[in-house]
């Protein structure tokens, strides 16, 4: 049997959504027989592969690197899921949006710093003016709100997709859950 080629990505988020994925606990064993994790912060693949069946995207699109990653993931995935409030609404990373980028950076790296006060520019991806939800850049097939989405809902969504059913998410999780 072909296993489902699953990718998960970690953009501007706290990794809580990935923790909730791991919270599926013992069901993970069963799940791992049916899926192949082809790209994820949980495994060590550096390059986004082709032919991804399902991609779970955690986090808002906040930097140029996030934007690039999301475009590639979209192009290579059959189904793309906004995974958690940061991906769906920009959530906590989006709280910087009402301040200018300059103010945000200077608050973090100059005003509140004690050592080496300077805004890092080398070897870090450039921040975008706004942290935005994933669907403001690419088409999203399913939205899985929650901060983080409950483990049970992640499992039922993956199980539905594995069985070729449309995931029934509505009402099972909500913003801020």
């Amino acid at each position, binding site marked *: 049997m072909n296993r489902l080629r699953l990718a998960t990505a970690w953009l501007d988020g706290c990794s809580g959504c990935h923790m909730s994925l791991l919270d599926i606990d013992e069901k993970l064993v069963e799940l791992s027989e049916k899926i192949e994790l082809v790209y994820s912060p949980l495994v060590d693949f550096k390059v986004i592969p082709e032919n991804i069946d399902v991609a779970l995207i955690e986090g808002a699109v906040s930097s140029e690197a996030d934007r690039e990653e999301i475009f590639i993931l979209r192009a290579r995935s059959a189904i793309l899921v906004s995974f958690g409030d940061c991906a769906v609404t920009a959530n*906590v990373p989006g709280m910087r949006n009402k301040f200018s980028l300059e103010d945000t950076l200077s608050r973090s790296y100059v005003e509140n710093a004690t050592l080496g006060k300077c805004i890092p520019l080398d070897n870090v991806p450039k921040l975008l003016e706004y942290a935005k939800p994933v669907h403001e850049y690419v088409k999203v097939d399913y939205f899985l709100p929650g901060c983080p989405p409950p483990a049970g809902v992640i499992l039922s969504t993956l199980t539905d997709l594995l069985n070729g059913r449309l995931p029934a*998410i509505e*009402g099972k999780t909500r913003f*801020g859950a």
Partner: protein
Amino acid sequence: MRYPAFLQRVADLADVQPARVLTFSINGQMVSAREDETILTVARENGIAIPTLCHLDGLSERGACRICIVEITGSPKLSPACVTLARQDMEVITNSERVMDYRRKILELLFAERNHVCSVCVSNGHCDLQALTIELGMTHVHYEYLHSKHVVDASHDRFSVDHNRCVLCQRCVRVCDEIEGAHTWDVMSRGYLSTVITDLNQPWGESSTCTGCGKCVQVCPTGALSEKGKSISEMTKKRQFLPYLKMMRGEEKT
């Protein structure tokens, strides 16, 4: 209207005549109503649910949020059920695809307009706005967020107002005016720039009219108004007091 003296008595008597009873249909179901009743009241009396946000039992109607819009056959526009009076033979539809679609859009616009970050809100889990997202099946916001710049006023000893979470329902304005009688709150500016203010836009903590009763905090549907120092589980709002207060004062309609 003022009549000549000899007719005034007749006119006065006419004013106290009981309201006319009329019949009309909601979702095909025949209902009867007094002519001074709104579609929302009649629907609820007949067990037909219409979602609302700015409406609160015990306060006057404002028609501010438009979540309760319904279709009336023959009218091209949608009408807010809370401020539209029943009419003889009207045909009301509360749950058509079109109505549901517009309700969701209105809800999404509320989210796009301010900065509602549910995960870090004191009302997370007991917020009327958040509950509506589930009720109306809203999964995300189709519009671009405005990233509007709003402030938090924590100058009051016991309460704070976070304008990022305000939906301009004006429940606070109405409860403070109609129940507490202080009229501390008002609305300033227009359109998406509208903001609730205390007194003449002074910090709440410096308000000379606020009695500190906390009624506005209790009726606020979101986390915009909250009590300081209360955790999420403690900051559940108590709205049941309103109908009782009105009843005690003999203001409740019979």
